[in-house]
C-alpha cells in the first residue's frame, strides 16, 4: 500500500488508506487517553489517600482483568474500572488499525495481503479475547 496508489482508486487508494489509518490511530489514542485521565482523576480522588502496595504481585480480581468485567464496572462508574476501560480502548486501537488495513486489502482485491493481515488479526484477537498465550 505504499506503492503510490496504482492498486486502488479514489476512496480506497493507498494514499487514502494511509490518511484513514493515521486518523484512526490519532482518534483511538485521544479517546483512550481521555477515558484514562477521567478515570484516573476519580481514582485519585476516591482512593488517593490509601497506602500504595505494589511490591508484591497479586492477581487482580477478575472484575478488572476481563473485558466484560471492566465494561460492567465502568458502567457502574467504578473509577478503577474506568481507567481499565481506557486501557482496553488503547489496546484495541492497533487491533482496529489491523482490521482497517484488512478491509483496504479486501477492497483492493489483494488476496495475498488479505491472508497476511487476517493472520495478524487472528493472533491479536486470540491474545485479547482468550487471554492466554
Amino acid at each position, binding site marked *: *500500500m*505504499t*506503492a*503510490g496508489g496504482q492498486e486502488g482508486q479514489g476512496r480506497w487508494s493507498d*494514499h487514502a*488508506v*494511509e490518511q484513514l489509518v*493515521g*486518523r484512526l*490511530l*490519532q482518534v483511538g*489514542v485521544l479517546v*483512550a*487517553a481521555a477515558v484514562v*485521565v477521567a*478515570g*484516573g482523576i476519580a*481514582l*485519585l480522588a476516591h482512593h*488517593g*489517600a490509601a*497506602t*500504595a502496595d*505494589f*511490591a508484591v*504481585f*497479586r492477581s*487482580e480480581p477478575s472484575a478488572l*482483568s*476481563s*473485558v466484560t468485567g471492566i465494561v460492567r464496572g465502568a458502567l457502574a462508574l467504578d*473509577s*478503577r474500572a474506568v*481507567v*481499565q476501560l481506557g*486501557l*482496553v480502548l*488503547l*489496546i*484495541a*486501537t*492497533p*487491533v482496529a*488499525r*489491523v482490521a482497517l*488495513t484488512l478491509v483496504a486489502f479486501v477492497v483492493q482485491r489483494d488476496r*495475498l*495481503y488479505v491472508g*497476511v*493481515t487476517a*493472520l*495478524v488479526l487472528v*493472533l*491479536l484477537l486470540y*491474545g*485479547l*479475547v482468550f*487471554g*492466554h*498465550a
Partner: protein
Amino acid sequence: MSILLLAALVGAGAFGAGLLGALTGLGGGIVVVPMLTLLFHVDLRYAVGASLVSVIATSSGAAAAYVREGYTNVRVGVLLEVATTIGALIGAALAGVVSTGALSILFGAVLLFTAYRSFQAPDDHATDAPPHPLAVRLRLDSTYPTREGPRAYTVQAVPAGFAMMFAAGILSALLGIGSGVVKVVAMDRTMKLPFKVSTTTSNFMIGVTAAASAGVYLHRGYIVPEIAFPVMVGVLAGALLGARILAIAQTRWLRLIFTGVVVVLAGEMLYKGITGGL
C-alpha cells in the same frame, strides 16, 4: 507511600522518560520498567504491564503522523507483524515461567545494546541493490518521498529480517518494551530499507506487537490502574511535548544524558539480576 504520591512521582518520571525518549529517538519505554522496579519497588509484572500500555500510546500517536507522510511501508509492516505477534504471544507465555532474575539480566543486556546503538553512526547503505526473490513475490519494494520526488528502493534478506522480528516480539512481551532498536536494526541493517522507512515502519509495528502481549497481560492481572494510569499519561504527555520541541532541542547533549541514564540502569538491572535483589 500513598497512592496519590506514588502516582505523582511515577507520572513525573514517566513524563521525563517520554520526553527524552522522543527527543533522542530511542523511545521512553526502555527506561519505564527499570524506573518502576528499581526506584519505586513495583513488582516487575506490574511494571511490564504499565510499560507496554505506554508503548502502545506513544507508538500509535507517532505512527498517526508518520503513516500520512508516506514513509511507512505498510506491506513490510504487516508481513513482519506476523513474526512480531507470534513472538509476543510466545514471550507472554514465557513471562509466566522465566525467573525475575533472568528477566532482569536480559533487560540489562538490552539496555546496553540500546546504549551502544545510540552511538553507532548511521549505516549509509545502498537501497537499490537487486531485491530478494521473496521481496519481489511479496511486492515489498516501494518508494519513499524525497525533496526530488518519490524514490524507489528494494528490500533484501526477507527471511533474516523475519527471524529478527520474531526475536523482537519475544523481547517486547518479556520486557514490556517496544523493541524499536531491534526492529530498526532488522530493517535498516539487514533488509537494507532506507533509514527513515525503517524507523517509521518500526514505529508502525510497535503498537501491534505490544497489543498482542498486553491483551494477555490484562487477563493475567499485570495491568493495574494505579500504576498504568500515571505511566501512560506521563509518557504520552512527555512524548507529545518532545515531538513539539524536537526542532529546537540540543539533541546531541540530551542523547548523551539519556544514554548515560540507560547505562546506569543497565548496570543496576544486571546487578539485581545476578544478586537476586529484584
